[in-house]
């Protein structure tokens, strides 16, 4: 921003070309990585988790069309994911019976249209209002749908949900979707397309106006836009992409249950988007990947993974409200100025001390869990075997917490100062 204005006309063509190369380059790189990823993994679990991530990323991005870009905090976004999924599952079943012709690769589109239809229905009244009232309506709609799922047994299949079978649908170009690896490519394709489309949406007139309405709905009305209508369009678009994610879910898991539409699913997507950062387009991508990673890996190691996730979430809200992506974004000037090297020392030191404290906290929590569960004996924690019913491990982990915390208090400000120094504009 300190660039003198006068240089702009001369530099602009070159900068624009470079920017374009880098931007399309990134999309291209993403496509290549998506294509090659399955080749690099050995286990089916990794494929399964990546499929889950792909669906979560689309869902989280669609959620952020509401929260990050439109300023609408929805507690019921999973409704559109779920309904899109249910409709896709029913259509897949019909295709399996031969009642209609629809190959599997097009199914997410069906889910998307389903999500869109219901978003248009519920959005027509809920987007009349913004802020807390909107949030409350979304909560009410979510609870309503959750309850309706018990009533409309035929459509929602009760507690058991609707199961379907992707290998019974007609083939398109001979593409089969029996193994997870095959489904991976389908998800990767839709992930790429949907992400591109959502990115493009944020760069359209109505996408921009969504930002404007988020910032200042009143003013938007005085430049010719109905805030209700702008929110409605964003809401429908978000419902559409959530429905695509739901359709992919139907293909991947071949089951949909009412809980896909429930409050917990809606809460999870909020966590993903927020931890990743709602201020940047890429935030929810990061959030969804991190969340799914933690969810699938952490839950194998500890029954309290939700506790850790909750702590991570609260810490984000309190200390890094811009999210992980926002945190990275803060470093963009440093990156540009090629001064990342200067931060390495203080960051590694603070990070290491923070890690020590975290190990201590996790150790203490796990031991509390152990004792509270009424267990006796020993258990493995990190690299140690500890006996939580003796004093020593408590002292040890407490010492780690204290040492780490004291250390961070000491090095933290230095790291912040180093950051401030490095991000100050000017010649290196």
């Amino acid at each position, binding site marked *: 921003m300190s660039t003198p204005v006068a240089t702009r006309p001369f530099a602009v063509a070159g900068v624009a070309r470079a920017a374009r190369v880098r931007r399309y380059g990134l999309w291209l790189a993403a496509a290549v990585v998506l294509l090659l990823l399955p080749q690099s993994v050995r286990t089916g679990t990794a494929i399964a988790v990546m499929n889950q991530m792909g669906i979560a990323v689309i869902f989280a991005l669609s959620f952020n069309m509401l929260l990050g870009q439109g300023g609408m905090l929805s507690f019921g976004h999973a409704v559109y994911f779920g309904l899109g999924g249910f409709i896709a599952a029913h259509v897949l079943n019909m295709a399996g019976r031969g009642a209609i012709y629809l190959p599997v690769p097009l199914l997410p589109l069906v889910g998307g249209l389903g999500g869109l239809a219901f978003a248009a229905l519920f959005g027509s009244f809920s987007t009349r209002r913004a802020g807390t009232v909107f949030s409350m309506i979304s909560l009410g709609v979510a609870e309503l749908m959750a309850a309706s799922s018990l009533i409309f047994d035929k459509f929602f299949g009760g507690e058991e949900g609707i199961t379907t079978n992707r290998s019974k649908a007609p083939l398109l170009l001979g593409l089969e979707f029996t193994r997870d690896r095959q489904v991976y490519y389908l998800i990767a394709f839709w992930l790429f397309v949907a992400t591109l489309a959502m990115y493009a949406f944020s760069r359209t007139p109505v996408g921009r106006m969504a930002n404007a309405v988020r910032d200042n709905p009143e003013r938007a*009305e005085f430049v010719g836009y109905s805030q209700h*209508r702008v929110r409605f369009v964003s809401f429908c678009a978000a419902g559409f992409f959530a429905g695509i994610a739901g359709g992919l879910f139907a293909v991947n898991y071949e089951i949909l249950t009412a809980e896909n539409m429930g409050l917990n699913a809606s809460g999870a997507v909020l966590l993903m988007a927020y931890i990743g950062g709602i201020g940047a387009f890429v935030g929810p991508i990061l959030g969804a990947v991190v969340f799914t990673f933690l969810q699938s890996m952490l839950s194998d190691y500890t029954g309290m993974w939700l506790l850790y996730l909750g702590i991570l979430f609260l810490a984000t809200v309190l200390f890094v409200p811009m999210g992980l992506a926002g945190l990275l974004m803060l470093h963009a000037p440093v990156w540009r100025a090629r001064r990342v090297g200067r931060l390495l020392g203080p960051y590694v030191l603070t990070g290491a001390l923070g890690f020590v404290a975290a190990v201590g906290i996790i150790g203490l929590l796990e031991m509390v869990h152990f004792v509270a569960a009424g267990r006796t004996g020993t258990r493995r924690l990190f690299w140690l075997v500890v006996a939580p019913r003796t004093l020593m491990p408590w002292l040890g982990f407490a010492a780690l917490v204290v040492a780490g915390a004291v250390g961070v208090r000491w090095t933290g400000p230095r790291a912040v100062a180093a950051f401030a120094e490095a991000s100050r504009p000017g010649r290196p």
Partner: protein
Amino acid sequence: MTPAIELSDVRKSFGATPIIRGVSLAIEAGTRQALIGPNGAGKSTLFNLITGKYPVTSGRIRVKGAAVTDLAPYEINRRGLARSFQVTNIFTRMSVFENIRCAVLWSAGYRYSFWHRISAARAVNERAETVLEQLNLTARRDVPAGVLSYAEQRALEIGITIAGGADVILLDEPTAGMSRSETEHVVGLIRQITAGKTLLMVEHDMSVVFDLADRIAVLVYGEVIAHDTPERIRANAAVQEAYLGVPQGGVA
């Protein structure tokens, strides 16, 4: 010729309290006019009624001959009437350029489009750049509007108002809180951007009012007590009374 703005017996009460007590006023097209009056006279309320922010209690409002009485702000705006706010009212998290661009979009015919790339909307972008230059904000183009200085925000406020090319412009205290030199700059800006258009402004700085306005309306306790050229307003007894509180006895 149809007036740009025409109020007939407009009334507005909040609860039982009448704020606007029957205002009839016609603003001729192509003129610059000012609305003045003591604090609490209802000037901002009148603006809010004309622009559709509040519904009227009774009475009728026309803009360029068309009835707008019960229309929403955006519908009135689309008829070519734009306003600024007394308290700065901008899109704080968006860049200065985006602020202006959003204000251009509707008038450029993009409506709720999600099939156009905004960066390819040449006419919109050129118009936004032009407005930025007029406002002298080109250097601050990519800065989030929320971090601009107060004077810059006031300039942006006016920029958002005029960017859509409305030909009836309402400015609510455009120079409030500005230094002498900043005020002069803004007056020049207003003069430039309202050339050939209709302007109605609320303003407390009388030098600005008498400098810019072709005609002045005086609002006191929700009623227009005078609407005339600056010279005649200066001499108007009722206006003197309203401002000074003492009848200028003996002159008549």
